[in-house]
Each structure stands twice: as C-alpha cells, then as structure tokens.
C-alpha cells in the first residue's frame, strides 16, 4: 500500500484533474520531488529551495508536519498526506 496524497483544487490542473495521487515512502520533500517527475510543476508550487512554502500546510494522517519535522517528516506505506492552502480568518 503506497502513500496517498490528497491534492487541493488549485493543484489539480497539474495532476490531470486527479484529487488523489500515490507516491513512495520517505521524507515529505523527497515524496514531493518524486511526484514532480510525474506531474511537472507540482514541487515548484508547494516548495521553494527544498522548503515548504509559507502558505502551504501539509498534514500526515491529519497532523500538521510543522508539529513534526516539517519537510523532513518521514512518511510510510499507508499514510495519507493532505496538501492544504493556508486559510483562516475564522473565529
């Protein structure tokens, strides 16, 4: 069972309309870079110089990676990754 990555609407143009793609275990940044080979342009949208962009939130099994090791967080088979644009202004 590979790693599942949920793709937000603004990026689905890059993933040929797919809401979900799959990748291999490893660090988040390695996963993003390997997905970029299949979906060129994806890594540039999410990261810059090997770091996640400021307005991108990445969750592993619903936990924000910034509570773990950011882009160096390890993901394993069966994990579910969500990429979510930072939004708020709730209250």
């Amino acid at each position: 069972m590979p790693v599942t990555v949920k793709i937000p609407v603004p990026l689905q143009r890059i993933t040929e309309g797919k809401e979900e793609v799959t990748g291999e275990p490893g660090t988040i940044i390695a996963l993003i870079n390997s997905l970029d080979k299949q979906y060129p342009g994806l890594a540039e949208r999410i990261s810059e110089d090997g770091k996640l962009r400021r307005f991108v939130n990445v969750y592993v099994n619903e936990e924000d990676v910034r509570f773990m090791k950011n882009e160096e967080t390890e993901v394993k088979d069966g994990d579910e990754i969500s990429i979510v644009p930072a939004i708020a202004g709730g209250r």
Partner: protein
Amino acid sequence: MGFVKGLKCRECAREYPIDPIYVCEFCFGPLEVVYDLEGIKGVLTRELIESRPQNLWRYKELLPLDKEPTVGLHSGFTPLVRADKLAKHLGMRELYIKDDTVTHPTLSFKDRVVAVALSKAKEFGFDTVACASTGNLAHSVSAHGAAAGLKRYIFIPATLEKSKIIASLAYEPNLIAVDGNYDDVNRLCSEVANKYNWAFVNINIRPFYAEGSKTQGYEILEQLGWKAPDAVVVPCASGSLLTKIWKSFKEAQEIGLISDLDTKVYSAQATGCSPIVAAIKANEDVIRPVKPNTVAKSLAIGNPADGFYAKQVVNNTGGDGEDASDAEIIDAIKLMARTEGIFAETAGGVTLASTIKLLESGKLDRDACTVLCITGNGLKTKEAIVGHTSEPHHIEPNMKSFEAVMDKLKKND
C-alpha cells in the same frame, strides 16, 4: 460602485479576476482585493461619508462589491467610547474603546465581515453559505444568512461554549459540530469547500469577507474627527483584523480622508495561543503553529494564516505584541466592566490585559492616544467568568433581612 480592479496575490503579485477564489494558483499565497484608489479619491469625501446612514456601508466605495449591498444594512458604526475612568486607572492620557460588543445583529465585529461576504456571495449567485468558526462567525453567518434567505452550513469545534452553540441554533442553520479544534475544523472545511459549490465565507469568499474588517478602522478615524490614533491594540486570531485595520488607515490617507498617519499597531493574544506574539517577541519571520489552550476560544487559532502579515504590520509601524494568561484575561474583563460599563467577551479581556502589560513594560506610551479594539460581547462567553464574580446577597423579602446586608456592606466600605 465598481472601484474594484481585481484580485492580486500578496506573495507573488499575480493578478486574478473577481471570482470566488482565494489562493494564488502559483504560490498558494492569499489573494487580496485591489481598488482603484485614484478613482475613489475624487468621489468618496468626508462630507459624502458623513451624509450617509450610520452603518458600515457608508464606506462602500472601499468595499469589494460591484452592486449595491444587500446584507447587513444595519451593521457597523459602533460607538467609539472615550474611556476616561479606565484611562485614569491605567495612568493613560487618552484612551478609547472601539465598542463592537454592540454590533448589529450578533454583537461581535464578525457582523461586519459577514455583511460584506454575504452581499458578495449573493452577487456571485450562491444560494448556500458556509463557514468554519469558533463561534462568533457561526453566530453571524447564521443570523445574516437567515435574513438574506440563504441556506447555511456552519462548522464549529464541538467543544465550543454552550451559549455560542445555542446562539447560532436559534437561527436554525445546519450546524455541524466537529470533534477537533478550530484548525481541524478549518482543514476539514477546505476539503468540503473543494467538493461543494458553496460560498464559504472564510475560504472561497475570504478575500472579500476580510475586507469588511476595514470598516472598524475607517470608523475609528472618522469618530476621532478624521485623525489616526497614536496607537491601536488589536486582538489576533488569524491576524486578519490587525492587517485590515492597518490597510484601512493607509487607504484613508491615500484618498485624503486623513492627512497624517503615524500609528503604532499592537497585537494582543492569549498566552495559551500566541503564535503571532511569540514571533514578534522572538523577532522571527516564521509563525510556529501551536495547539491552543486558552479561555479565549474566539482567538484560538493555532495556525494563523495572516500571522506573517500581522507581524509585518507590527514591525513596520513600530508597534509590539503582548500576551495574557487566563487569569489576567478574566481580571481585565471585570476591570473594563466596572470602569466603563462595557462587558466584553474573552477576546476583549485579552486586548485590555495585553495593553496593561504593554504599558507596564514601557512598550506602549501612557501619553499616546490609544484605541482598544473590543470585538465581542461578554454575554457570548459568560462561562468564562463563572466563579470569578462576586455572589448575590441572598435575603428574605423583608426590611430586616435587607438591613442586615446593608450593615455588612457598610462595614466593608
């Protein structure tokens, strides 16, 4: 109307048309409304504004609608209270409370942003509105949405104060209580928003919604006699209100409503959820998300989307930030009530308690003309002060019983 030029990414400056979109497709940066300020300059004068009804739409040229507003026609234009008793207590020269505890119709500043968001949603042709909320937004979308004849889906953390849940349910929206904190609710909602074609006021309508906060800033300027204060203290959750108040001051200067602008902007947060103030204190550009744990639930956003920009405003204006513990928040709520007769919700306690600490540390000048943004009514978070107030004097229905209490009170005087 019609002074809106389009949307623009705050990060990479890419431009977009007026649509229910909220993030830059390229860098995920937030989109912001851009106006033709040159065009507004000749049209929106002090005299025109003053001739209009006392609600937030008196500044409509600076709000992102293409047609006339349809929602929240009585929202805004709350009192700016000169708080002399509180000022004396704190040793301050000139202090004002921008009193959004009495905003129509749901007693928090969220009525401003929702008035704008739902007017825009109707322009776009949506029949359903939704939001992720810690309570005040839920309350306001429930109410404004009912009056506007819109279907409503309201998502809240299940742990919200009971009084806020009931307050929203009175308007019979579809209320979804999520097992998780606000950030969990928000993340879920961004997925829901992907799937359902609704106007999510704080997601796909966010660029328009957030502009409503500016009206609090315009009102402060107008009510001070078209002058900017020396200092303004703003409670921060997502950081949006703080950045928009500053934007309103800058726009007002640019179109000539005020001449001078030298306001220091201060950020107030609860210690149990202070990612923005922590970054200000440590002088770091990165806003580190936290897991909120505070009595000030309306400010409990651990992952503030506008935190970076709020910190930038604070730094660029020479302001600062401070945070307050639960005990300090409760003391401040009571202080404001007994000095000024204004009962604020916990966020108001955060603002005043942080102000007191800013004064004590010398970061805020006691001689500065200062405005506190008080954003919600204490009746909405009564639970927070239960057990922290005095008790009633319980008596029999006769004079003897009453005089016994009077004797006791005289002794304590």
